[in-house]
């Protein structure tokens, strides 16, 4: 083998290692922040998963988070009055100074969720780690949770469904909402909306553990001026906002 060959092989080897390292690195860093949960281990109340949304970094025309959510969860409806929207972009204009904001609104994963309180069968429930979900097996489709939700975060499936993501079961005649991509979180991944926002380079959505004082989200919630939607109701939502 000539020196040139050796040098070429070394170069290829180093490059491959670098590429491999770069590809794995984000995953490794994610594992550090979100930490995959073994399938046989229940969600823990040690965690409180939440989002911090910075409206200063969220532009009015961008709806990548919405598209990513719909794609990941196979929500294929349009935007009609009977179509499910697990996440939506809300445009705000201040009535006092005319300043505009844009931000995504989804299930706020309240600590004291009214939807869970009113659900007659217990189909609406809160996971130990704070994620509010609907058990599609025992939801009878009474829609009382939709009446109770202050955030208009829930949708009702008005028509028969075909072609579903096996990880995200949906069903005609039942209620559904943002799951915070629980199946992705359990794998140690970011919710699809946050992932898309990061990939777009906006960084307007920060996901993390509100219970972990060393997490970035907990630090920012502790030190920065964040708000809750309808804070007057004292539901302590897991989704916080900044800049509005």
């Amino acid at each position, binding site marked *: 083998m000539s020196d040139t060959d050796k040098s070429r092989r070394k170069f290829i080897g180093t490059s491959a290692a670098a590429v491999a390292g770069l590809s794995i690195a984000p995953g490794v860093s994610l594992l550090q922040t979100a930490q995959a949960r073994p399938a046989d281990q229940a969600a823990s109340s040690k965690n409180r998963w939440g989002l911090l949304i910075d409206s200063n970094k969220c532009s009015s025309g961008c709806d990548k988070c919405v598209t990513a959510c719909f794609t990941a969860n196979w929500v294929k409806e349009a935007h009609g009055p009977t179509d499910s929207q697990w996440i939506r972009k809300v445009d705000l204009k201040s*009535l006092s100074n005319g300043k505009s904001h844009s931000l995504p609104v989804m299930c706020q994963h309240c600590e004291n969720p*009214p939807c869970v309180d009113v659900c007659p*069968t217990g189909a609406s429930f809160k996971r130990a780690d704070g994620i509010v979900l609907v058990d599609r097996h025992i939801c009878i489709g009474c829609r009382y949770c939709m009446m109770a939700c202050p955030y208009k975060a829930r949708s009702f499936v008005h028509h028969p469904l075909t072609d579903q993501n096996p990880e995200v079961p949906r069903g005609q005649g039942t209620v559904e909402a943002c799951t915070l991509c629980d199946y992705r979180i359990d794998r140690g991944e970011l919710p699809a909306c946050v992932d898309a926002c990061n990939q777009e380079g906006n960084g307007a959505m920060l996901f993390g553990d509100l219970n972990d004082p060393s997490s970035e989200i907990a630090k920012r919630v502790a030190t920065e001026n964040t708000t809750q939607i309808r804070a007057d109701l004292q539901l302590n939502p897991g989704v916080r906002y900044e800049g509005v």
Partner: protein
Amino acid sequence: MKSLVYREIPGRSAGFYALLGGLGLFILAGLTAAYMMDKYGHIITGMNDQVVWGLPHVFAVFLIVAASGALNVASVGTVFSKTIYQPLGRLSALLAMALLAGGLTVLMLDLGRPDRVIIAMTHYNFRSVFAWNVFLYSGFFAFTAIYLWTMMERRMGAYKKSAGVVAFVWRLILTTGTGSIFGFLVARELYDSALLAPMFIAFSFSYGLAIFVLVLMAAYGWTGRPLGDLILQRLRKLLGVLVAASLYFVIVYHLTNTYFAAHRGVEAFILLHGGIYTALFWVGQVFVGSLLPLAIIFHPRLSKSRSMIAFASILVIAGGLAQMYVTIIGGQAYHLVLFPGYQEASSFFDGVNHHYTPSVAEFFLGLGGVAITCAITVVGMKVLRFLPESLDDQAVDPHAAAKS
């Protein structure tokens, strides 16, 4: 007082079977609507993700509220010992159970998954006022049935008073529960009021009595049994008091809401610029459902007319349906305010008031519930002895009859 003789209605005439046949058709239409909603989904209704409870709920809640009110005629007789009302007790209890059955059928068939209704009885969330209502409904059937038994079975007569008191207390709790279904919804500005519970109780008194008066007049008129002015005039006056009480609650409720700055938006929507809801409130609930019947009921000449008493009862029912429409649908049509101080806009209809147009399927489902109520009442009167043979003045109160 001579002892009353209760007798089944003959139920052999062509008119009787025509009535049952007609009711059967409406029940069939209601079931067909429910089947279509189950098969194609709620997409065939006018309901959507903003107005999630529609016309079926208007009918269902109206019937359920009226159910507990219909029992009051019996309660006045038994619990408050007003003997003149006692002959009406059996019909009152039958009508109460029939109304509840009709209302619950509509409520159940409007579920997204009516096939899972059994889950509502196997999985309970005891924090849910809806789950409490499941107990309240079944308890109402049970206690009213026992009460009816004590009224119809001579050997059980000794327990009538106790059974009547329990049923009366239970019906108050039941309507408190129905009102609280809305009253506990803190996020929606038209609800979020403890006043809804007593207001619904007042509504139930007047709606239930109005229905009772109509059923009584129809049953006695169509079977040719005598119905005296004495009892009818007592019921008329009672209806007047109850309609006035309902109106009082409506006034206090809206005044209180108007006082809260945060609720002024929804009040302006309902009272001033809510389109159909404003019209239904002022024309339907206030004028047709309250002021006009009150004028008739307390008018010196009109109040003597039986047809005018029946007309006033129909007006109270029409006003009641308008009230339910305004309360249930108007309360949802007004947008939720997520960010006070901001103008909101989104693809999910944030910041705008929501549209709702009921579909034919919803209308027939609701009417199907009414037909079930009527059918149970009619069949009940044919198979069991619910109605006294005579309710003329002499039969209901010989002393008063002698004086007049």
